[in-house]
């Protein structure tokens, strides 16, 4: 089963990206009950911001910095202030619908103002393969995996080991009380939006060299990350990570051993089973029920 090793590596690398995207997804859910249907487009956009910066002559490193900054402004700050804030109090659904509309808007804007064509994107990780246990593994996969793990590790450290992280958790778990004891809740929520924007920009940087920059490339990614977040546990960062890796691997195994026609069905069936038998997700915490 030499094939299996390749599948696992590829699955983990893709899964690491899903995890990055899914983590941001769960952060938004926890702090502001935002189900962001535009999360895939959030990953697609930063690559175009970086490309745009390069088009006007910025070197790659500067374009990366500009792209990350711009996405934090647009996808973090502006998204929160213009769309989430006015709707946050009105329940999950209207905001979810608004993010669907946002997804359409972002896609159309990129298509209209940039291109309907796919564009290549430079890789920050050198291309090429190295040999691990006699298997050729692409440096890109490893790079993706390493950066994603570092990012997630950094985030969990922030959340669990620092006072700032505790304040963010407090703001997510009980905003009213957090406010009362002096936690700057608004700033904490904004911070999660900025972190999400940073994570999607990072994911964009890692994935676009492989997936290519295209206005529609967020659709697949968004859905996968969405499934990953739910399977892992919608209200837990570590759940999203596990879910991302799991879905990445599962997708590859399904394509190999089930049927390519129904490969997309396998994660979905898995999702349904998980929700029905462990609704909080594999690593999530049960949401409270009042009986």
């Amino acid at each position, binding site marked *: 089963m030499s094939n299996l090793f390749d599948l696992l590596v590829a699955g983990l690398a893709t899964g690491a990206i899903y995890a990055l995207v899914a983590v941001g997804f769960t952060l938004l859910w926890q702090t502001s009950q935002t*189900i962001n*249907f535009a999360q895939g487009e959030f990953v697609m956009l930063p690559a175009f911001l970086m490309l745009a910066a390069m088009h006007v002559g910025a070197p790659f490193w500067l374009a990366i910095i500009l792209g990350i900054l711009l996405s934090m402004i647009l996808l973090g700050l502006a998204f929160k202030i*213009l*769309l989430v804030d*006015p*709707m946050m109090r*009105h*329940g*999950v*659904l*209207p*905001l979810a*619908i*608004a993010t*669907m*509309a*946002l997804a*359409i*808007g972002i896609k*159309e*804007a990129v*298509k*209209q103002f940039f291109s309907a064509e796919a564009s290549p994107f430079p890789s920050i990780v050198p291309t090429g393969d190295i040999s691990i246990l006699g298997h050729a593994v692409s440096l890109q996969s490893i790079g993706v995996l390493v950066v994603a793990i570092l990012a997630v590790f950094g985030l969990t450290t922030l959340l669990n080991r620092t006072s700032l992280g505790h304040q963010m958790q407090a703001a997510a778990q009980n905003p009213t009380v957090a406010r009362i004891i002096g936690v700057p809740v608004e700033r904490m929520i904004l911070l999660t939006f900025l972190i999400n924007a940073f994570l999607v920009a990072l994911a964009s940087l890692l994935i676009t060299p492989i997936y290519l920059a295209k206005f529609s490339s967020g659709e697949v990614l968004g*859905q996968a990350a969405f*499934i990953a977040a*739910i399977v892992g546990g*919608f209200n837990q960062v570590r759940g999203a990570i596990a879910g991302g890796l799991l879905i990445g691997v599962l997708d590859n195994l399904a394509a190999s051993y089930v049927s390519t*026609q*129904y490969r*997309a*069905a396998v994660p*979905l*069936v898995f*999702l*349904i089973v998980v*929700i*029905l038998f462990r*609704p909080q997700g594999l690593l999530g915490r049960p949401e409270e029920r*009042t*009986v």
Partner: protein
Amino acid sequence: MSGFAKPLKIALGLIVIAGLIVIPMNFNRYGLFILSQWAVMTIAAMGLNLTLGYAGQVSLAQGAFVGIGAYAAAIMTTHGWPLPAAIVVAIALSFAVGWVLGYPALRVQHHYLAFVTLAFSTLAFLVFRNESWLTGGIYGISNIPRPHVFGIATNKPLPFYYICLSSLAIVSVAVWWLIRSPWGRAFMALRENPLRAQSLGIDTRRYTLMAFAIGSALGGVAGALYAPLTQYIDPVPFNLSLSLDLLMMVIVGGAGFYFGPFLGAMIAVLLPEWLRFTEGYYLMLYAIAVMGLLIWSPTGILGILDRTMAARRTKAASALRAVAKSRLETAQ
């Protein structure tokens, strides 16, 4: 809505109905097609409004039921069955599948339920696409005939529009009857407080399944009309985005309001058409319009009415409070 006197409301209703019958007579084929599409989507959205708006069961699978209805109708009518028979089968089939899809709702609610139905929606798409022996796969089914009604062929757009419109009328009356019956009240109880509903003898299991099944059946009706309307179907229109569109119609119109789906479908079907003059920008503008509308009124268009009324009530209560006499004083 209570602002109007009853006769005025009836008169208004009659004018709208007459308008829907008479004015399109002068429309070109495109106008009639879009209006027919509006009628069909309104039926599907009414179904979802029943499941989601009234019974509070979030479903992201309504598009799949439109697909089930459309395929049932397409397969049957291309094999020589009459459309009414196909509609009956479409209803029965989507009712049954909707009933089954209701079972997860007995275990999980809200966003979890949304995710399950979302997954179902994509699975249904995969089945439509992959089971080519039945559905024609990616090639779809073409040459779907339009029916003869009382000997009149409905191949021309206007007669078929009237079929869509009268179907909409029948569904509207049925839904109106349903929501004002004790069933409707029980549905609302599911939405507002299932726990309390149970303890009042309301069989929440059965009503939940019914809410799903009936809502889905209406999706099936819409699908069974959609197939002869376009005369060709393939799996792509019934993917997740149709479900999301229908959800958008319900929310934007106003979930849980009887007229919400009419307005929501109008916005989702007609607004992009109106915006087409902006060419490449029309979907962008549409997206912005939807976001703007939701920011303005997250409870949908009809939610605005509700809000105004609530504001008026608070104001009155506040005024009453200011002049109320203290019991302590009265006791003295």
